[in-house]
């Protein structure tokens, strides 16, 4: 149907070329009309299966629709045709980061920047990923005592971690706590980077609202504290709790530091 519309737009004189199909698809994508764009890209790739433009658009659209496995396959098809395609490298790098593979992400971004040193998206992400791979300050890992942190009774979860994602304290602690710590560290780094890029100074705190829970974050150059409450927590009260527990954390960490 979409192709028929494009055919009519051409005056019905001839079938649209793949260039015209992909151009229209790109326009739909830029308007957020991802499904319509995807239909055109699929048709274009039937006509020209080795089109770098087509596979790149497909990767972009799958990523926009959160279909990351299909996006990854499309970006890899682009890279099989052009090993240094910067947009495909960036797309693939972002998926590697989502998968928790910081080393692969770094390598892909470096390759993109080798070809295009002036690539702000890749540079911004590389800064965040590089910051995460630097080890935290050497501190003893002796257990921080939860009872001294005194989180409020309605805290559903408490995480205290180093900025390199090393877990210091978690309550409760389960099979996915390490993954959550890694994601929390990445969220804090990305949030800090966004604020810095926007000229808004370092991160003071973050409030993350989900359908079921609200998570409050606080951090500095050494550690990150995350407290999760029910969805209906009063944010101002939650932030007051966060500040209080943060003070206790800093006191505990100071106590743990070697003389």
């Amino acid at each position, binding site marked *: 149907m979409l192709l028929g519309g494009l055919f009519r737009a051409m005056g019905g004189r001839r079938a649209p070329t793949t260039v015209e199909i992909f151009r229209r698809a790109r326009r739909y994508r830029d308007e957020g009309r*991802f499904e319509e764009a995807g239909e055109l890209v699929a048709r274009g790739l039937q006509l020209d299966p080795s089109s770098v433009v087509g596979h790149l658009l497909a990767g972009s659209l799958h990523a926009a629709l959160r279909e990351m496995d299909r996006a990854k396959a499309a970006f890899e098809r682009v890279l099989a045709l052009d090993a240094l395609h910067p947009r495909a490298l960036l797309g693939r790098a972002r998926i590697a980061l989502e998968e928790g593979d910081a080393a692969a992400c770094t390598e892909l971004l470096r390759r993109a920047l080798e070809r295009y040193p002036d690539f702000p998206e890749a540079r911004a992400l590389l800064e965040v990923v590089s910051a995460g791979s630097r080890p935290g300050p050497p501190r003893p890992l002796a257990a921080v005592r939860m009872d001294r942190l005194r989180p409020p009774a309605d805290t559903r979860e408490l995480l205290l971690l180093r900025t390199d994602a090393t877990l210091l304290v978690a309550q409760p602690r389960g099979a996915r706590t390490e993954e959550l710590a890694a994601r929390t560290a990445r969220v804090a780094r990305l949030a800090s980077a966004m*604020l810095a890029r*926007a000229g*808004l100074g370092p991160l003071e705190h*973050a409030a*993350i609202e989900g359908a079921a829970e609200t998570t409050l974050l606080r951090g500095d150059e050494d550690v990150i504290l995350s407290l999760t409450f029910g969805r209906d927590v009063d944010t101002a009260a939650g932030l007051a709790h966060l500040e209080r527990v943060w003070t206790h954390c800093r006191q505990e960490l100071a106590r743990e530091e070697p003389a």
Partner: protein
Amino acid sequence: MTVNGTADPARPRGRDVRSLLAELARLPGVRGGLVVAADGLVIAAELPAGSPVEALSALAATLGRELELRGPRLRRGTFQMAQLTGTAGGIVLGSTPIGFVVLVAAADADHEAVRQALGRAVETVRQAWSR
């Protein structure tokens, strides 16, 4: 880069994200904003000239995805909105089916009013794009 939105009367309000963003960017204390797809593509931008649009869009999309993945996989509920507070202002980021809406606000903005306005806009976009 500044991309000014113009209203398209033929489209449902939530489908015209450029106009929606232009309205949000006019809130007191709001410096501007972005609508960015989950792949990092900028769909609409209303930021002062000289703003690092590309870097912000890449970071916003990556942060938005990280927050989304933190949700369902870890049984924390679907991510809806995040408020980032810096020493000189704040950023609010909301999740929609077409990507993320980002607003950049000065320190003296009414951040609760900005958060609520973004929440309403996100809901409008969700309804328009989930049909």
